């Protein structure tokens, strides 16, 4: 059945779908606010006349391509096309500023290829056992895992002061509580403004924190994004540079694969977690944020690994690991394929064709990069007088388009000012953003766990998984103390 899947995936029609989907995904992923979910949702009606395998390959390739495509605008314009590329901007953009835009795109493409291919192997061989592990995570475990994620990122992101990270984190947590309470449904902190009843929306917040704040910086700076317009680097050098960091590559791929297999956490958090983990063990951690190649490898390997492994719970349990996986799940069902063990037995031929089709999409990603990257990198030598209104306009339509709400545009502007001030004072933006992504899930997990236990806090240290995560939380809180002791010992 696996062999049949490989042969079918290489049929001309399926190859064409993989190339078309990947190219479309890269272009749409690079446009802020469009992303994979919206593109897949728009393409879904056009797949009705296709064979199930071709339809799934087209949609899956859009998903993979868009995840990588988001990194292109993150690197060249400091505007992540999708939340999956938030962390790529931290070092990708400084590399572009140094005239190494091509290298950064090369690194991004190769890391995405490796992460995506490894994620596919996980999907192929580890789908059933990993799905079983994710079933062991109840509300208490999800709450603890989220809390651990918050803390480890806040205390390790900035060496100069852990308080900056923690203040941004707690402020982000307050922002995440605006709107409907995820458990009782009560409205909080809305000030009778109907827009705020739905809470702070993630997409305009991301556009504001990263893109709008960058517009402010560009207005101040002037000139061009790249300070060395003649030295744009080499894409092949970028491909080669990726392999200089085998540990980061492996670790980030594993982080992405693991997170993708857990429903709910998703690609938005994975790239940030991988970035912070890479920074924490890097021998040149101080270079992070100023154009470290490792800082591009980590998020890109992890986010493309997530795209593949987020299909594990979707295909085996019918639980999507991300919003794009949910669209893909819908496509599966529309084409008469029911998630579960049957997908790998009765419908195995279609499923394996789809999985190998995603593998081909990964190769297409490299091909499209080699063919068009030089054209894309030209953006970095365009005068910012031209770029500023164009980026602003993309921010506007990106924030507006998802819910057709002017409120989202205003939120993007407000977050732009906040992001700009945070940058100037060296407060980590990720720490403010992370609670907006995971805050409601954490709060829901907390209350649901207490409801299950009848109000007893003992549930948070009841299961073996809870105990392990609780220990990790304590260790993360002690992290700054370890750092201080290490410094003293060094002196």
């Amino acid at each position, binding site marked *: 059945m696996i062999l049949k899947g490989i042969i079918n995936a290489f049929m001309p029609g399926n190859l064409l779908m993989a190339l078309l989907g990947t190219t479309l995904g890269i272009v749409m992923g690079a*446009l802020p606010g*469009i992303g994979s979910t*919206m593109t897949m949702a*728009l393409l879904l009606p056009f797949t009705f006349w296709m064979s199930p395998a071709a339809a799934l390959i087209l949609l899956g390739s859009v998903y993979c391509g868009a995840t990588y495509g988001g990194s292109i605008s993150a690197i060249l314009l400091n505007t992540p096309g999708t939340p999956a590329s938030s962390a790529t901007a931290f070092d990708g953009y400084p590399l572009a500023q140094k005239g190494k835009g091509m290298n950064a795109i090369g690194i991004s493409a190769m890391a995405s290829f490796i992460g995506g291919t490894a994620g596919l192997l996980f999907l192929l061989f580890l789908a059933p056992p990993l799905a079983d592990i994710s079933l062991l995570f109840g509300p208490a475990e999800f709450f603890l895992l989220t809390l651990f994620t918050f803390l480890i990122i806040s205390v390790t992101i900035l060496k100069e*002061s852990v*308080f*900056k990270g*923690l*203040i941004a984190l*707690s*402020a982000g*947590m*307050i922002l995440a*509580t605006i709107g409907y*309470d995820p*458990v*009782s449904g*009560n409205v*909080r*902190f809305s000030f009778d403004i109907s827009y705020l009843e739905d809470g702070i929306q993630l997409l305009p917040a991301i556009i504001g924190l990263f893109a*709008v704040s960058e*517009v*402010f910086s*560009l*207005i*101040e*700076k*002037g*000139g061009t994004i790249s300070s060395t317009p003649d030295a744009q680097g080499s894409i092949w050098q970028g491909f080669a540079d990726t392999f200089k960091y085998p540990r980061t590559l492996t670790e980030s791929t594993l982080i992405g694969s693991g997170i993708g297999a857990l429903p709910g956490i998703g690609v938005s958090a994975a790239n940030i977690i991988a970035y912070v983990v890479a920074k924490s063990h890097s021998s040149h951690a101080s270079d992070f944020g100023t154009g470290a190649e490792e800082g591009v490898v980590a998020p890109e390997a992890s986010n493309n690994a997530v795209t593949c492994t987020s299909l594990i719970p979707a295909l085996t349990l019918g639980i999507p690991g991300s919003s794009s996986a949910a669209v893909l799940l819908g496509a599966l069902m529309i084409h008469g394929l029911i998630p579960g063990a049957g997908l790998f037995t009765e419908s195995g031929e279609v499923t394996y064709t789809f999985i190998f089709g995603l593998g081909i999409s990964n190769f297409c990603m490299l091909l499209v990069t080699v063919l068009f990257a030089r054209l894309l990198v030209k953006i970095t030598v365009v*005068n*910012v*007088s*031209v770029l*500023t*209104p*164009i980026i*602003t*306009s993309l921010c*506007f*339509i990106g924030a*507006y*388009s998802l819910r*057709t709400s*002017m409120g989202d*545009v*205003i939120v993007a*502007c407000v977050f*732009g000012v906040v992001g700009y*001030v945070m940058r*100037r*004072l060296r407060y980590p933006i990720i720490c403010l953003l992370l609670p907006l992504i995971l805050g409601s899930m954490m*709060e829901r997990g*907390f*209350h649901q766990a207490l409801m299950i236990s009848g109000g007893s806090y003992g549930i948070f240290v009841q299961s073996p998984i809870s105990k392990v995560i609780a220990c990790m939380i304590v260790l993360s809180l002690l992290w700054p103390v370890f750092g201080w002791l290490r410094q003293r010992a060094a002196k």
Partner: protein
Amino acid sequence: MFGGISVEFSRKKFEALFLVLIAGWAALFLRISSDYAEISRLIPRIACAATLALVAVRLAQVLFGGTDGKKVTVSPKAAWFALALFVGYIGGTYVVGFLPATAAFVALVMWFSGYRRPLLVVGITAGYTALMYILFVQVFSVSLPDSLLGL
């Protein structure tokens, strides 16, 4: 772009002001949260209390600790330009519609930020606005914001 006029603040004062604003906002939310049911107020209260405590510690660090002596440079001209840029664009969209506002906005920003090549400004503006129309209206069927003039 706006190198001419700039004002320097000490980073210490700038950060202290930022922290005071965060503390005021957290205190306001802490006060408001006391009106909510217990299940709804627990997490916000913890977050507000944690923010206040952390801000207090950081404020002490900033005010009484060593300072790096660095300055934060702000250009009032650039700040006003950025503000006018966003308010003008949103307001323009509200009055004349997204596409005419985008065309006017792109052309005006390019011109006033020093890109004085009339043919290129017109060409880029027309090309970009047409691309936006084709991509977002024709391909993605995104419904653009309503305007007073209905354009």
